[in-house]
C-alpha cells in the first residue's frame, strides 16, 4: 500500500501535538476510504489520493499557522480591521532589526566613501574633472530613515494602546470562528 505509506509520511507535516492526538485516527479513516475507493477502480483511488494529500497539506499549514498566530488570528481577517488581541506580539524585534539594517547601510556608505577618497589620493586627477554627484545614496538613506521613523511611530502607537489596556475590551466579545 504505497499510498498509505505516503499518507503516513505526509502526516508528519502536522505539528507534533496534532499528530499525537489524531494521526492514528486519520490513518484509520484513510485506510477505510482507500478500501472503498479500491472497489470503484483506479480513477477513484487517484482522486482520493489527490484530495487527501491536498487536505493534509492544507490542514498541516492551517495547524502550523494557528500554532504560530493563535486561535483568534482570524479576527484580523474577518473584520478587516486591526483587532488587538492578547496573543499579539509587539514588534520589538522589528525595531531592533531596522536599527541594525540602518546602521549597516550607514556603515557601508561611510566605508564606500573612504575607499573612494583613498582612490582619489592614489590616482590624482590629471585634468579638470567635474565630479558626478550621486543622487541614489541620499535617496536610499532618506527612504530607509522614513521607514524606520514610520515603524517606530507605529510601534509607539501599539505600545501605547497596549498600556492603555484597550485590548482587554476585545476579550469580552471574542468568540471562535468555525
Amino acid at each position: 500500500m504505497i499510498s498509505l505509506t505516503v499518507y503516513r509520511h505526509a502526516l508528519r507535516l502536522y505539528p507534533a501535538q496534532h499528530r499525537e492526538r489524531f494521526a492514528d485516527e486519520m490513518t484509520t479513516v484513510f485506510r477505510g476510504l482507500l478500501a472503498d475507493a479500491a472497489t470503484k477502480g483506479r480513477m477513484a483511488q487517484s482522486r482520493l489520493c489527490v484530495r487527501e494529500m491536498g487536505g493534509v497539506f492544507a490542514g498541516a499549514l492551517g495547524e502550523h499557522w494557528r500554532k504560530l498566530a493563535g486561535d483568534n488570528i482570524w479576527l484580523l481577517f474577518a473584520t478587516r480591521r486591526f483587532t488587538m488581541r492578547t496573543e499579539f506580539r509587539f514588534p520589538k524585534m522589528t525595531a531592533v532589526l531596522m536599527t541594525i539594517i540602518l546602521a549597516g547601510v550607514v556603515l557601508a556608505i561611510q566605508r564606500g566613501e573612504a575607499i573612494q577618497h583613498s582612490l582619489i589620493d592614489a590616482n590624482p586627477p590629471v585634468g579638470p574633472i567635474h565630479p558626478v554627484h550621486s543622487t541614489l545614496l541620499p535617496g536610499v538613506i532618506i527612504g530607509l530613515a522614513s521607514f524606520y521613523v514610520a515603524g517606530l511611530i507605529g510601534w509607539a502607537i501599539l505600545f501605547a494602546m497596549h498600556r492603555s489596556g484597550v485590548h482587554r475590551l476585545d476579550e469580552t466579545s471574542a468568540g471562535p470562528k468555525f
Partner: protein
Amino acid sequence: MEFLPLTEPVLLILLSLAAHPRHGYSILKDVEQMSDGRVTLSTGTLYGALRRLLDEEWIEPFHEAETSRGRQAYRLTPKGRRNLQLEVSRMKHLTRLANLRIAVKEASA
C-alpha cells in the same frame, strides 16, 4: 453570537453527530450522503474541524466499550447542540424571509 454562521462542512459535521455519536469514517460518509455527494471532506479538513470543535467543547470524545486508538467516536455536548439549534433557527428565519421576498416578487411580476 459571533461564531455564527457556521461553514457548511462544520454544520454538516455537527448535524452528523446530532443523532448519535460517530467516529471519523462514519462522519465522512454521513456528510457525503447528507449533501448528496456534493460535500466530500478530506481527513485533513475533518480533523481540523474536529480539533476546533473539541477545543471549544462543542463536541467530546465518546468512549465506547471497544474503542481502539485509531477509532475514536465523538458526540455533541449540550453547548454544541445549543449552538447547532441556534444556527438552524437562523437558517429557518433566513429561508422564511427569502420565500416571502421571492413570493412578493413573483406576485408583482
